[in-house]
C-alpha cells in the first residue's frame, strides 16, 4: 500500500507563492525513499507534512490507503529522526528511548523489553543511564535511531539525520541505517541535501528544486538519465559541464556546435536552435599539445592521488572540468586539446533532457581544427 502523495502543496501565506507545489509520488512498503534537494527546496517541509507536524495546504496524503490530511501525528503511527536528534537533555538514554512508549501508556514490562532491544540494536546498551550531553555526536544519533526503532512503527521519517556528524562517521552511519532499514523492513523516507547519501542509500530518489519535483527514479537512472540540467548538475562530483550548443551540419550528418571548437555528431537532426549539452568531467579527456595548438588552456590542477581534476578554459572562455584517472602531470597555462569520450546529455531550452548519447561509438565530441 505504501504512502501516496497526490498534488501536495504548501502555502504559508495566501499572498505568497507556495513553498511546495503539486508534489506527486508513491512510496512502496519497505523501500528506502530519499528526498534530496538544495537547502530551501522544501524537502523538510514535505517530510513534516507527511509526519503531520505541519498541515497540508492542498492535495491528499494517503498512508496505507487512508487519507491522513488533518490526522494528528500520533495517530499516523510513524516514527521520526530529527536533524538535531531532539533528545530530551534531562532524560537518560533509556528514558529518551522510552519517552513515546510511556506517553502512550504502554505496560512497563513491554517498555523495558523494547528499550532493551532497541538499545542493543544500536550498540548503546552500556550507555543507557547516561544523559545525552555525556554522549558523542554519533552516540546521540544512535539514541535517536533507537527511539525510532522502539516505537515499532513500520514507517520511519528521517530529516537530515547525518548532517551533524563528521565525514567518516557519516559513511559508517549510512551503511548502518541502510542495514537497519532492511532488517526491520522499514518504509524509510529520508531527507538529505547530500547527493552522495541519496546515491548510496536510496531505492528511489525524489529530487526537489524550485518548489517542484524534478525527477523520481532509482539512483542510477538519475545519474544516467537526468531529467533536466538541474538534476544533472546536482548529482556527480565534480559537477557536470554544461555547454551551450547550436544546431549545425547537414540533414545527413546533423551536429551540435558547442563552441567554435567542440562539436557533437547527432543520430537524428534536431530542430534548429540553441541547446545545452551536459558532459560529465570523467567523460572528457585532454592531452598536452604545443603552445600554438589545442583548444584550451589549463588554469587549475587538483591531484587527488587516484584521480586528477583539471580545470581548463576553452578558447571561447567557457570553463570545463576534466577528470583523468591516476596521476596526470599537467602544468598550469599548458595548452591542451580537450576531447570527449563518454556519454553526453542534450537539454532543450526548457532544460529538459531530449536526447542522450552513450559512449564513444555513437557520440563524439571532437575538437575541430
Amino acid at each position, binding site marked *: 500500500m505504501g504512502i501516496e502523495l497526490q498534488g501536495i502543496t504548501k502555502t504559508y501565506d495566501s499572498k505568497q507563492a507556495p513553498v511546495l507545489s503539486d508534489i506527486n509520488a508513491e512510496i512502496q512498503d519497505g523501500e528506502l525513499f530519499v528526498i534530496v534537494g538544495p537547502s530551501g527546496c522544501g524537502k523538510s517541509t514535505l517530510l513534516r507534512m507527511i509526519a503531520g507536524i505541519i498541515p497540508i495546504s492542498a492535495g491528499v496524503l494517503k498512508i496505507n490507503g487512508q487519507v491522513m490530511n*488533518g490526522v*494528528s501525528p500520533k495517530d499516523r503511527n510513524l516514527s521520526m529522526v530529527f536533524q538535531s536528534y531532539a533528545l530530551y537533555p534531562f532524560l537518560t538514554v533509556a528514558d529518551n528511548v522510552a519517552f513515546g512508549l510511556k506517553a502512550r501508556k504502554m505496560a512497563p514490562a513491554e517498555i523495558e523489553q523494547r528499550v532493551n532491544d532497541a538499545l542493543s540494536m544500536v550498540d548503546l546498551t552500556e550507555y543507557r543511564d547516561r544523559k545525552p550531553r555525556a554522549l558523542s555526536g554519533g552516540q546521540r544519533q544512535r539514541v535517536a535511531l533507537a527511539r525510532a526503532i522502539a516505537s515499532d512503527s513500520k514507517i520511519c521519517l528521517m530529516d537530515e539525520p547525518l548532517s551533524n556528524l563528521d565525514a567518516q562517521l557519516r559513511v559508517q552511519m549510512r551503511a548502518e541505517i541502510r542495514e537497519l532499514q532492511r532488517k526491520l523492513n522499514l518504509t524509510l523516507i529520508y531527507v538529505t541535501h547530500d547527493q552522495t547519501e541519496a546515491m548510496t542509500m536510496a531505492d528511489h530518489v525524489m529530487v526537489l528544486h524550485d518548489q517542484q519535483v524534478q525527477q523520481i527514479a532509482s539512483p542510477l537512472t538519475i545519474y544516467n538519465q537526468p531529467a533536466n540540467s538541474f538534476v544533472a548538475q546536482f548529482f556527480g562530483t565534480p559537477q557536470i559541464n554544461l555547454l551551450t550548443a547550436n544546431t549545425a551540419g547537414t540533414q545527413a550528418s546533423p551536429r551540435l556546435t558547442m563552441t567554435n571548437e567542440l562539436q557533437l555528431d547527432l543520430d537524428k537532426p534536431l530542430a534548429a536552435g540553441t541547446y545545452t549539452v551536459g558532459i560529465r568531467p570523467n567523460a572528457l579527456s585532454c592531452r598536452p599539445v604545443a603552445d600554438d595548438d589545442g583548444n584550451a588552456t589549463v588554469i587549475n590542477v587538483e591531484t587527488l592521488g587516484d584521480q586528477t581534476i583539471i580545470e581548463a578554459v576553452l578558447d571561447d572562455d567557457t570553463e570545463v572540468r576534466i577528470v583523468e584517472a591516476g596521476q596526470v602531470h599537467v602544468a598550469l597555462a599548458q595548452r591542451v586539446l580537450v576531447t570527449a569520450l563518454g556519454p553526453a546529455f542534450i537539454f532543450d531550452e526548457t532544460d529538459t533532457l531530449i536526447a542522450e548519447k552513450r559512449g564513444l561509438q555513437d557520440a563524439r565530441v571532437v575538437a575541430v581544427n
Partner: protein
Amino acid sequence: MENATMNRAMFKRRLGKTAKYTMLLILALIIIFPFVLGLWTSFLPSMDIAKGALWSSHLSLNNYVAAFTQTKILQYLLNSLIISTLVMFAHVFFCSLGAYAFVFLKFKYRDQLFYAVLATMMLPFEAEVIPNFVTVKCLGLLNHYSVMVIPFLTSAFGIFMLRQAFLQIPRDLKEAADVDGLNHWQFYWRVTLPYAKISLFTLAAYSFLGSWNQYLWPMLTTFSDHLRPVQDGLRQLQSEETFNDWDMIQASAAIVVIPTLIVLFIGQHYFKSGLNEGAVK
C-alpha cells in the same frame, strides 16, 4: 470514513482555538483591569467617584488640570527623571569599569576582591538603611539630589553581570588590540563597550527602573517637594488627600504611569530580547 477522521480533527482544532482566545482575553483583562479602571476614573468628576459610580455624563480632563496646577506632580516626575538618568549613566560607567578590571586586568588579590564584591550581592540595602542614613546625614547630603544618586553609582550585581558579558569577548580581540598597541582605556572604550552593548543596555534599563522605583530611601532622606522623586511624591499626595479625594490621585497616578507604559510598549521588542537574556544569563 476517511473524511470523518479528518473533519473531527479540524473541528477539534477550531474548538481549541476558541478556547485559547477566550482564555487569553480573560487573562489580558485581569492584567489590564486595574490600569483601565484607574485611567477611566481619572476622567470622572470627584462627586461621581465618591459615590462609587463607574459611569458619568461629565467626562473631563478637569482632574488632570487640577493635578497639574494644585500638585507638584510634574516637579516629582522631573526629579525622578533627573535622578534616574544620572544613576543610569553612572551605574553603567562604574560597573563596566569594575567588570573590565576583573576580566582584563591582572593584579594582586583580584579573585579575593571579586569574591568580596560578589558577597555584597547577598546584602539587602533595606537591612543597611540605618547606618547609611547616619552616613549621608554626616556627609551633609540629606535633602539633596545627590543623596539619591551617590549610594547607587555602582552595584555588585552590575559588576557581576557585566563581568559575565565581558567574559564572552574572544581573547583574540584583546590580543589583537595589544598587537595594535591599544591601552586598556582604549580597548575598554572602543571594543569592550560596543561588544557588550546588549548587556549594557540591559543594565541601563535595570538601574533606571531600580532608581525610578526607589521608595524607602527617598522617603527617609528627602523632605522638600522640589526634590522629591515621584514614588515619594505620590505617597505624599496619597497621605495628604482626604479619604475620598480620589480624582486628583488617580489623575496623578495616570500622569506617572502613562509615560512609562508608552516607553515600555515602544521598547517592547528590545525588552523582550535584552532584558530576558540579561536576566537569565
